[in-house]
């Protein structure tokens, strides 16, 4: 019997994060994602030239809402973002670091743009992996903080985010001027995802440097809906829609560890089982699901979840057979 194979006309854009000395940066490695001409891991139907990549998240302030299970592997480093980043790279073998400038939020630390800029410079010195740099989510403050962060990391070809349909101009201009890639965010809404990409590209920013954050929900918190949005966008892209052809970034750690099922202690919910593995399973399950929907970059937290998902990715990529 012949196996029916789907072939597609479109291709997901390839985005490279990190600039080595050769490209005018100071990174010692680069990460390229995207390039798919098939739905995820269907190597018999098309190409998936780059394995999905995991970025480990580093915050500029000590996390306030992380449960003990999640804090434990990082120890003291949680109070020192540079040390934290180094630990992720050296101990947990992270190939990509995602620095979230959460502490610049007016309600959570209100750190200055200058402090953040200095931190970015220090991290760029301390680790040589490519960087993802995120704001706090406060639009007004992000426009100041990220502009500065972009400037001090000029030429390193980072991935900066997030630009939204309502607030994209400042960040787009910065990324354009300083040679970075950009994350376009939309609230689990495919129409807004498309619109955000168009708005950014109409400022002269190449569509080929946009990474799409469709926003996800963790297992139990709208994951199926998020999955369906990613899947629909990916199918449209493979059918040739250039405005949705960016690779996906998924904030797996942030969403999974927001779930009470991941956070609650065994004393609070003895029926849910051991808390030391429960959160890790939650994060792993969420990651695996979004991988199936086409995720290219996973932003994750717990080293054990990172390790498990990496094994899973490596296993699936073995079928690539080239």
């Amino acid at each position, binding site marked *: 019997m012949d196996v029916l194979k789907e072939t597609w006309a479109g291709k997901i854009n390839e985005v490279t994060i990190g600039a080595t000395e050769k490209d005018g940066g100071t990174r010692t490695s680069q990460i390229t994602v995207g390039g798919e001409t098939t739905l995820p891991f269907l190597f018999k139907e098309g190409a998936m030239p780059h394995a999905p990549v995991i970025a480990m998240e580093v915050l500029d302030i000590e996390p306030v809402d992380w449960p003990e299970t999640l804090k434990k592997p990082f120890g003291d480093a949680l109070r020192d973002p540079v040390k934290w980043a180094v630990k992720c790279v050296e101990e947990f073998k992270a190939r990509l670091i995602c620095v979230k400038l959460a502490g610049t939020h007016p309600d959570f630390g209100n750190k200055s743009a200058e402090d953040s800029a200095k931190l970015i410079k220090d991290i760029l010195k301390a680790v040589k992996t490519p960087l993802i740099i995120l704001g706090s989510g406060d639009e007004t403050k992000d426009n100041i903080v990220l502009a500065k962060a972009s400037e001090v990391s000029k030429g390193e070809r980072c991935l900066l985010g997030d630009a939204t349909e309502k607030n994209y101009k400042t960040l787009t201009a910065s990324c354009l001027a300083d040679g970075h890639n950009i994350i376009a965010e939309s609230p689990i809404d*495919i*129409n807004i995802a498309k619109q955000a990409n168009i708005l950014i590209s*109409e400022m002269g920013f190449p569509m080929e440097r946009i990474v799409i954050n469709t926003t996800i929900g963790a297992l139990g918190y709208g994951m199926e809906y998020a999955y369906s949005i990613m899947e629909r966008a990916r199918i*449209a892209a493979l059918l040739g829609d250039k*405005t949705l052809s960016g690779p996906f970034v998924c904030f797996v750690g942030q969403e999974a560890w927001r779930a009470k099922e991941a956070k609650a202690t065994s004393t609070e919910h003895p029926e849910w089982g051991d808390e030391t593995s429960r959160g890790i399973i939650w994060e792993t399950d969420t990651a695996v699901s979004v991988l199936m929907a086409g995720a290219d970059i996973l932003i994750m937290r717990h080293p054990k979840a990172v390790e498990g998902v990496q094994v899973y990715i490596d296993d699936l990529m073995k079928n690539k057979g080239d």
Partner: protein
Amino acid sequence: MLVIGELINGMYKAVGTAIEARDKGAIQKIARDEIAAGANMLDVNTGPYAKDPKDVMKWLVESIQEVCDAPLALDSTKADVIEEGLKIVKKKAMINSTNADNAKLDVLVPMAKKYNASLIGLTMAKTGIPRDRHERMEHAANIVTKCQEVGFNTSDLYLDPIVLPVNVAQSQGIEILESIREFKLLCDPSPKTVVGLSNASQSTKQRPLINRTYLIMAIACGLSAAIMDPLDQDLMHAAVTAELILNKTIYCDSFLDAHKK
């Protein structure tokens, strides 16, 4: 839907003059304008009066390919003129066209296969213009059978139901639209469908409106491609919107701009 720009045709006076004077710039401008307006493919027709149509075809294809890399639909009633273009195209071309006569099919279907081109099959024959959907289906079946015999992939076949002017053949409208639906059931993989749109409004007083309405109705019947004027912006916008309503593209506020990305 595949938009095949119809403007590079020696039948149009300005194009005919440009061909005669071998004015490359004039042809290249039309090509660029059509692409900028959203055409996915360009029809190339030497026109009926070219003295040496083979030479003209070669010159047209070369001139166009210097400035744009869109695929071309090589449009001629003469197989050797089409082949002249096929020899030098850089992208997968389209042959425009064969009809359902065996004499033509025997030449053009193997030619399409040889050059890996797609092929327009007009559902008419020497016997004349088809009178209804049944005659169209009969011709279509003949074309499909020939493709299958030769091993030409039917998903590269574009069946043309022959659009007739609404002011002389009003009863044909529904026959044509129904044919677009029915052609697809002929074989697996389904053949595609194409119309020469502007013919619908020939010699009428409301050409753009008739073209636009015709196209939307044909798209609703599942039309895959149209040879049309891409510079008619209302027409292009109507086509984009029709595909949006059919859920073939994803909505966003700038959907008209998105189409051109």
